[in-house]
């Protein structure tokens, strides 16, 4: 469960979904930041991080997510999260992340909101 894995599972329009599993520490955070940078450079300015399979995160990993947030803000994009465990949701709330990101209960709800209507 703690082994880190990242998959870009969906790309539609300017939205990309990054499915993340395992411990988000310095190494996991670096992988996310690198992949996010690539996606942003390719024009995916709305990134949805699905944390359904992430149970634990540390402040170094969080600081790397802040870099991703900074990059999305630079391109006037959106950083969104979905499927947070209660403890990770509380961590984000303590940091005030909801002010700068969008947080959804699940991926379906997130994509309904983030994808432009057909």
């Amino acid at each position, binding site marked *: 469960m703690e082994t880190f894995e990242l998959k870009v599972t969906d790309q539609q329009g300017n939205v990309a979904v990054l499915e993340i599993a395992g*411990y988000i520490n310095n190494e996991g955070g670096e992988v996310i930041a690198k992949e996010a940078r690539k996606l942003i450079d390719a024009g995916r300015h709305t990134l949805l991080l699905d944390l359904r399979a992430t149970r*634990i995160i540390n*402040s170094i990993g969080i*600081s790397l997510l802040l870099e991703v947030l900074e990059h999305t803000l630079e391109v006037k994009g959106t950083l969104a999260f979905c499927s947070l465990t209660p*403890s990770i949701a509380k961590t984000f709330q303590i*940091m005030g992340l909801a002010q700068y990101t969008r947080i959804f209960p699940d991926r379906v709800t997130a994509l309904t909101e983030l994808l432009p209507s057909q």
Partner: protein
Amino acid sequence: MAMIMVEPVRVRLVLPRTPRAELLATRAVEEAGHRIAFPRDTLAEVKLAVVEACLNAIEYGTGEVEVEVIAHADDAHPWMEVAVVDHGPGFDPSGVAKPVLSDKLRSTRKRGWGLELIRRLMDEVQITSEPGLTRVRMIRRRGGR
């Protein structure tokens, strides 16, 4: 009515200075917490706080990082107590600035959340620090926070 005293569950460990060593402490928290039927979501918050305390101890300390987890099985009010000890140069906890997200987003240094998370995730936090000995003692009660 006779009172039944239940001995607390105690786990002590010394963390190796290896990547992800802090996860060993979270396993000890999980094991001790399960034994007193501590709520899972509350336990998850304790684990996040313990990760932060261990990371600080590993990063700023020298020598061994010791962790003690005590799970108190009081029927009505079970509680978890975790102490993380390092032997680094020490620090003044009152001198650690509270992080502000808007400032962090403008700064090249985005770290500095650990102590704030510990304080906000736990019910009580006591930090004693002097050169050679820093001890972070954290308490979380069921139903706290």
